[in-house]
């Protein structure tokens, strides 16, 4: 079960570190760092149900504004 209550001992410290992580990076570099971070944390959490809940929560309320160009449905 995804915990959405506070679970961080020093929340402000964490947030600062997260912002600091991206200092001086281009959007492309940031995207790569974020991707690595997600993969590392996902593997650490390991629980597929929790990960799916987190993905659903992250996507909540976001309406796709474009379509991936590199696929099409046949027939």
């Amino acid at each position, binding site marked *: 079960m995804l915990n959405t209550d506070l679970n961080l001992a020093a929340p402000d410290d964490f947030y600062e570190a997260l912002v600091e992580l991206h200092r001086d990076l281009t959007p*492309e570099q940031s*995207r*790569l760092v*974020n*991707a*690595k971070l*997600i*993969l*590392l944390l996902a*593997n650490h959490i390991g629980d597929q149900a929790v990960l799916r809940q987190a993905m659903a929560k992250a996507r909540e309320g976001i309406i796709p504004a474009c379509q*991936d*160009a*590199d*696929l*099409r*449905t*046949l*027939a």
Partner: protein
Amino acid sequence: MRGGKAPLNVDYQALVLDYARSPDQDAPRPVWHPVIVVGAGPVGLSAAIDLAQQGVPVLLLDDDDRLSTGSRAICFAKRTLEIWDRLGVGQRMVDKGVTWNLGKVFFREEPVYSFNLLPEAGHQRPAFINLQQYYVEGFLLERARELPNLEIRWKNQVTGLEPAPDGVTLTVSTPEGEYRLRCDWLVAADGARSPIRRAMGLESKGRTFRDRFLIADVRMQADFPAERWFWFDPPFHPNQSVLLHMQPDGVWRIDFQLGWDADPVAERQPDRVIPRVQALLGRDTQFELEWVSVYTFSCLRMEKFRHGRVLFAGDAAHGVSPFGARGANSGVQDAENLAWKLRLVLEGKAPASLLDSYDAERVHAADENILNSTRSTDFITPKNEASRAFRDATLELAKDCGFARRLVNSGRLSVPSTYRDSPLNTPDGDAFEGLMQPGAPAVDAPVRVRGESAWFLRQLGQNGFSGLYFSDGGDLHPVRLEALRSLAGGAVPVQPLLVTPQGVRPEETGGIPVLEDPEGLLTRRYDAQPGTFYLLRPDQHVCARWRRFDPGLVRAALARATGNA
């Protein structure tokens, strides 16, 4: 070649297979055949050989007079080789093919991940061989020609078809005009663009990927090992992927990702291809271009593979991306799944509804192949900036993080499906561990037969069901022995086999073949104990198993596995 022994080095690509007029063309009415197979590719040839070997007369029609031009499919999986062992051509394929088990993945210049597709010993066949499709077709053709009840007609193109509840009437076009044929069952193995599918107004639906790939098969002397090498974003072909793979006769498969915007006609020209190959091999390496092709691919399938008396198999029924070698391999498995069922139906030993299990099992397998192949393609051809970032993140982490190596996906290579939910399975009533659950393809193990080393899968009934009884090597009760022996005598015979520990055997086995299990591997792989009994289908899939042998339960499971329950 006809009738004689095949010469050692046949140029199968150059072989012209002569059209010959058949008496059927002069018949006043359409001549009837029990089974017509359309398409003499690896799938159609395998299906035709399997049926003919089981005693069913087969007519195989092909619209061309040549075998495969170009190497095309080159990776043939362990299960396919085991099927071809049953069809009598496995050894020839392995002898000519390049055996490999190892795959390596590089990111930019560095190796990030390697995998062994056959990490354990005790199997006769390797995970894969690489062999040009024209050899595969050539060897299958030569085997087909040994079978007197298998007739092949080249330059016979199906141009019309009338399916009816009791059979199918075909219009066939030849260099000497049209004629008509009738059959009880039609096997359509006529490829991705299946004219039969189109003639029936049916579709194969799915997704196509907006990416292009270049195959350059080159002939050269090179000292790369017999492994599958896959690069993401290498310096010699930036931002794209490259695959390198060894084939027999000093031919190498190089597959370059080009991207969607590449011009498919221009990219095929030697002046474009040669610099790409030189970038990989270095300017000094001498090579010749053997075959060049630019392709795109789709993951798709027909909704159903059985349409009355027409059965679709191979690329006609489903399509995948090439990265898991799941196309030709799954097609050969279609053929094997279909052949024994069709034979039982034709012999009147099973209802036609048995063929619905072909549809259920092979649609399940196609979905599994499409799922795996789509996932690989999503990794190799990222859909958007985010998926590209996750791909690169995975590859960078893979250098020093074990978990990320397992996420790297350069192709999940073909393994046979387990038909878990097949209506032909008898669900377990007893507790078992391991992989050999009902629906699973039987795994191999070393055995000893009459003191000689042999392989388990080769001992199974060649065209029928097998019953595997694990004993402790002590004497069998005469009643049990007789019950085992009588399995071979039913309308659908079951070949009994007796497994014993090494060096022990019952005094009297009543003619039942004895397989000694020298390393205990067979017993372990089947989680067997003395008394365990497995019922295996003609296609070597498990359909039932018990901790003790009960002839009544075996009969019930056999009825179920043949659609007679």
